[in-house]
């Protein structure tokens, strides 16, 4: 425990050991951390397992922005959200898992909205390949098999 730390600051430790000093107001945007703080079962350092430093930094950035701009115009926040979640699929996946695990509702909503936008207007095959890990050949061969099955001559 570091006594030099201000009272309303918390330390979050990511899965790979990096530590972030975060104001308590920001940290409690995560319901899971909030519960921990309220139950006083946490010391100043809160371990955040399953979330690595990179992703944790992103989540904290998001929470900070939301905490600061509560009074700001909602449209500003909206543009920030849409820019924030506009990332590669890999980062999106990690963020969703982190947001779900730590129970950060605003972030989860923004992320889900973004993935929904990604699904919008895509064909069945495209969705299967991009999101369900189908290989292109699975789709092709299943088509082939279906063709052959339909055209078979029962010899």
């Amino acid at each position, binding site marked *: 425990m570091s006594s030099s730390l201000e009272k309303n600051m918390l330390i979050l430790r990511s899965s790979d050991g990096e530590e972030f000093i975060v104001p308590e107001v920001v940290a409690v945007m995560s319901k899971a951390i909030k519960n921990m703080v309220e139950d006083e079962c946490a010391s100043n350092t809160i371990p955040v397992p399953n979330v690595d430093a990179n992703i944790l930094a992103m989540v904290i950035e998001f929470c900070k922005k939301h905490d600061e701009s509560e009074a700001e115009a909602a*449209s500003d926040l*909206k543009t920030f959200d849409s820019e924030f979640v506009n990332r590669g*699929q*890999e980062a999106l*996946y990690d963020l*969703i*898992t982190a947001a*779900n695990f730590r129970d950060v509702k605003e972030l*989860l*909503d923004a992320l*889900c*909205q973004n*993935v*929904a936008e990604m*699904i*919008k*207007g*895509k*064909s*069945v*095959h*495209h*969705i*299967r*390949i*991009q*999101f*369900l*890990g189908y*290989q*292109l*050949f*699975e*789709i*092709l*061969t*299943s*088509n*082939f*098999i*279906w*063709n*052959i099955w339909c055209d078979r001559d029962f010899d």
Partner: protein
Amino acid sequence: MKVSNDVALREDISASVVCNRHFQTVWKSLKPALTREEVNSYSSFMKNPSLISSGSSKASAKQNSKHTTSLLGSVSTLLLLRLRLRLRLRLSSHVVSSSLRLEPSKMWNALTEISDSEFTLEEVDILKKNKNIFKDNIPRKEVEQFFANLPEDIIFEILVKVPARDLHENVRLVCKAWKGMISTSNFIAQNALQVKPKLLIQSVTFTRPWYVKVKAMEVDEERLDYKLSDFELPQSVRVRSSCNALGFDPCTKKYKVVHICTLLFHFEIFTIDGSDNAWKRVCGPWEHPFEWPFDLDFCLNDPVLVNERFVHWYVNSDEYVISIDLSNERVIKTHLPDRIEGIDNHRYTLLELDGYLSLVHNASNTQIDVWILEDFHSQIWLKKHSILAESIKYTISNDSSSCSKQENAFPNLSKLVPLASTRKGEILIFKHKSSGTDFRFYLYETKNREMKKFKMTIRAQLFFIPHASSCSHWRTSYGP
């Protein structure tokens, strides 16, 4: 299996366990039964297929199917595909997919060569355009199977945000689990909450042949602007009420259709998916024709539907409107707010506003009052807000800047007729009463008191219906 048993025994005669190591040994010792020469000969078969005797190819196919994995290095993707075809696809798709983890670049080559698949060319094109999803650095396994690894409630959260049209056309077909999720009534209800309401603009020409063109207008929530898109209907028909605006009874969870026999004093209600499949007769609020507030040639307008449960009709009266509560199927008179003095039956319009029935009263040339029926059963009206001419910030959109000055001047508020409201009743859409060649309409934002004028050139009679797409559907057990 047998061979690996032997290996285990050879190592230790008392062995009771055959472990992975033994399998590995066997695996290494096995040689691919299909050699390069044979592969080449297969490909030459392909070129002159008349030479093949089908029997032999079948036989070798059986023999060799187990060793495809080890073959992969030497066989080009294209050839392998052709081989598969030749082998009459004896392998299940599962085997094929696990053995064919191919490089993306080869995939595309193969893809363009295949012409006899049902995979339509358009689909291939679309996939090609999104080639970046096959990046060379293959993502982690769980990211690749993005959805397969997410918990179900997150998938629900995501899919609920997808518009109904996409859900119906594509997402539903992706996999069984998704289809099951999308078909639940909970999902449909949640999804309906997410959609932004639209205004259907129907232009109807009354010359033969009948012609109805429907466009959907979506109001931009941020910037007081709008977007038009085509709205496809299976037939050229006039929409009287939108699908979600079909009456809905929350108690029995059934949709209902109301039919009015103007000359017969009564109303008929049909319950969709109901048990009796018949129209139910309901008495109107009048007993004699002389009680009608309207003439014989009066035409009932499209109804205003509130909360999908209460249906209201304007009946040309300065005292009341007709309402039906679809739960108890009773027709009653809803009296207009008595605080409005001298209300003229041509100067108010009914509207749905954020889940309430609203009455928009053109009080004078410079004032419009918006009332809402706060409580249906005890009939309490409340003045929501007043639109005062002097406090409005008036702007003109770019497309109407070419109009004459007179036309662009601030409109006489008594000439504005409300069409719909969006964004929880914060934005009202008005049209101008005057019948010109252009359709002039105004968006009004109640919070900032901004009004913006727009213009559209449509030469036909227009009808307006608020609409929101949803996944609810009607399956009848009586039809074919």
